[in-house]
């Protein structure tokens, strides 16, 4: 059985950044396993710009952003196996994969990094009723048909969910000659980035229906009509509010879920909120030597944050590989407090604090005039004032290594509204 220092599962933005980080931290014997025909992951179909403002201080398209990392990994001599699907992960850090060249292969590693990405919630995950006709797609699926394969899925379009991919597709399909009749969002606020609301809907006069949802699809062979209804504060449709739109296409942008069947199978502890693994400051999961990053860990708004965390996971794995027996002392839990949905990472090690740690989190409702508070053992460690804070934008708070070294009890990150 072939042994590597590190196996990285997934060659998208997270996997490539983790590979670069491993190399830069002195770990050379690594391999990236990518299921698609080329590395780059979902970035390859995101041909719009706006990627890389933080990482490269410039606006790049998705493929251009990916290209920088593809080049970098090539320069560093990272082996990337494409069209390669991982079929099994063992808690003993063995990985089984399959591809056309090698057949079924089992390999082992000192460390495994999960950079497996996420998938779009399908229609069946929500209570939308009606006919099983053609013409209902997830937004990312329509994006692949259009940007990779070169086919337009329809001419009259409605979009359910104001997630970023849905907003981007509203603009994209309009530019390609389709008529987008509207975007419905079940929540009273948008789930997309404000810049996307502005640039993709407002600039094209596409109406956004807040507190509305598509309740029914109607069509014999292909979609003919959708039923849109307003919802009450419990998200239940209000009878009498039915509106009908004649459309041949419905795109769903109703959420992304970390792909976690590999980690599920070996019983890695999952976070109920993120639906990804629980990780510590090194991005190590509950299974020793197995790390996680990218959208497979938690769904990101910006690829720059993916890159940052993946680099951290790469360094964490490198540190682990070099000194597996290192005692890190007791782990202190970092949890989500008031108005906060989750935090990543969720554990730190005060006795072994050699790096500052940045915590990523999202609020679970839009708040104004708020303050981010980090508390431990009843004492306030940090507080940051925020004029406005919204669920669609990921927030960050940094704790210095000496602060972490001084922690004794559980840490809570909360957001309070100032009166």
């Amino acid at each position, binding site marked *: 059985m072939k042994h590597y220092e590190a196996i990285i599962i997934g060659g998208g933005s997270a996997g490539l950044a983790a590979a670069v980080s491993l190399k830069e931290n002195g770990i050379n014997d690594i391999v990236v396993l990518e299921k698609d025909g080329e590395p780059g992951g979902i970035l390859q179909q995101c041909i719009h710009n706006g990627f890389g403002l933080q990482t490269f201080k410039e606006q790049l398209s998705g493929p251009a952003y990916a290209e920088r990392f593809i080049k970098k990994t090539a320069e560093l001599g990272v082996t990337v196996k494409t069209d390669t*699907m991982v079929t099994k992960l063992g808690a003993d850090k063995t990985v089984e994969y399959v591809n056309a060249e*090698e057949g079924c292969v089992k390999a082992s590693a000192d460390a495994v990094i999960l950079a497996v990405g996420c998938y779009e919630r399908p229609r069946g995950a929500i209570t939308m009723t009606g006919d099983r006709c*053609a013409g209902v797609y997830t937004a990312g699926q329509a994006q692949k048909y259009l940007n990779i394969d070169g086919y337009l899925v329809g*001419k009259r379009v409605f979009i359910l969910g104001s997630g970023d991919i849905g907003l981007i597709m509203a603009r994209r399909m309009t530019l390609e000659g389709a008529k987008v009749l509207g975007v419905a969002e079940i929540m009273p606020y948008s789930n997309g980035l404000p810049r996307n609301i502005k640039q993709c809907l407002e600039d094209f006069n596409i109406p956004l229906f807040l507190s509305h949802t598509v309740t029914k699809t109607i069509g*014999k062979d292909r979609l003919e009509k959708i039923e849109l209804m307003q919802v009450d504060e419990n998200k239940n449709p209000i009878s009498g509010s039915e509106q009908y739109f004649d459309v041949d296409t419905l795109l769903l942008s109703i959420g992304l879920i970390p*792909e976690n069947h590999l980690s599920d199978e070996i019983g890695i502890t999952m976070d109920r909120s993120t639906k990804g693994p629980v990780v510590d400051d090194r991005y190590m999961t509950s299974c020793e030597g197995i790390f996680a990053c990218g959208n497979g860990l938690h769904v990101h708004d910006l690829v720059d944050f993916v890159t940052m965390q993946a680099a951290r996971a790469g360094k964490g794995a490198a540190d682990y590989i070099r000194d597996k027996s290192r005692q890190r002392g007791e782990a202190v839990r970092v949890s989500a407090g008031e108005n906060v949905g989750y935090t990543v990472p969720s554990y730190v090690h005060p006795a072994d604090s050699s790096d500052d740690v940045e915590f990523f989190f999202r609020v679970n409702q839009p708040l104004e005039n708020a303050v981010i508070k980090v508390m431990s053992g009843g004492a306030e460690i940090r507080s940051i004032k925020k004029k406005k804070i919204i669920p669609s934008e990921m927030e960050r708070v940094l704790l210095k290594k000496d602060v972490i070294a001084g922690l004794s009890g559980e840490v809570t990150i909360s957001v309070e509204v100032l009166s």
Partner: protein
Amino acid sequence: MYDIVIIGAGITGTMLARELSRYDLKLALIDKENDIADGATMANSAIVHTGYDPEPGTMKARMNPEGCRLYEALCRELGCKYAVVGALIAACGADEENHLDILAGRADERGIPYKVLDSKAAHEAEPNLSDEVTKALDFYTTAVIYPWEIAIACAEVVVNAAGVYAENIARMVSDNVRFRIEPRRGEYYVLDNAVAPVKHIIFPVPSKEKGKGVLAVPTVYGNTLIGPSSDVVDDLSDNGTSTEGLDYVTKNIRRLVKNVPLNRSIRTFAGLRPSADVHDFVIEEQEGAGTNEFAHGFINACCIESPGLASAPAIAKYIINELISKRMELKEKPGAVLTRERPVVMEELTPDERSELIKKEPAYGRIICRCEQISEGEIVACIHRTCGARTVKGVKKRVRPGMGRCQGGFCEPRVVEILARELNCAPTEIVLDSAKSNILESENR
């Protein structure tokens, strides 16, 4: 000119066709849809009922136990999935417990094995049973199958096996039709195969009004079905889901099973049962058909609602032995092959076997469906088999890409591409299911 034409390529039609293919006959199997098993056979509970339920004296009572006994061997002969999971009929309270005794009595008469479980034993067998369950019958030989897989495997005959449309077809030959189809829609949830709330099929105590009720069914591929609802509908093609139907399912399953993770639903679907006012299978030569020369020998196999799937093998034999053989002489065809080898399923091979196959056919090494791990080789093969797939749903029915948690989000574009390539047509010509269910509007380059 055919000796026998079968109208309807669902489970009843295809199984009859298979049985008839033993004989030297010219057969035709006709269906209004563009694939086999697109009606009730596609959307049901996938259970081989053992036959304790039907009222004594009915065709159902005659066909179901025998059909069930034939299934395991049939699935083996056809290379189809057959998984014994067992079924618990769960009673809540004294009234329902009394009904269990009736069912147990019927099972005894029909030689169907079962065990009686008291509340404690039932909860031990199935920890997620609701606390209200007081007693259960364990029909431990009950199996689940992949219904359309069997119909497709059978596929190759004027027996009226046209499911919910049967009445219309029968009316063409006689005005003296003794049944009226009242299609009942059943809606279901399909849960992610990462969650398994039940190990057995869980039934409520059946009732005349509601039929078998809302069930939880572990399927052959690990997903759990929750359903069905039961609403009479007017429209013979109305297989859309409804809020009322799904709410009914939600409410009723909670009475029997706790911790049902409906939040892990990956799909909802509805199927139409060909129910009728007679509440029994109608398998007989159409009366009065003799006055119409074209309708001479017109046989109805109608109103095949539950337990139709479980009864199908017995129905096929009954039609041949009791009805067709009285009309014509059936000569056995030497060398008739009624079996089918199971197609290659990568998941069922050992790593070494897989590697060996990939060496010969590299396409088996390219995984297209990431959720269910289906290779390009399997997809290509299912297109080129007899009665091969022509649609995205046809591929899904045969080799399962799109059956997983992403529901084709990732693999559907790849399947479209492969279908177009293998059928030598433009991707814009590929349809999801019915003839006009196009997936792509236009080329855009």
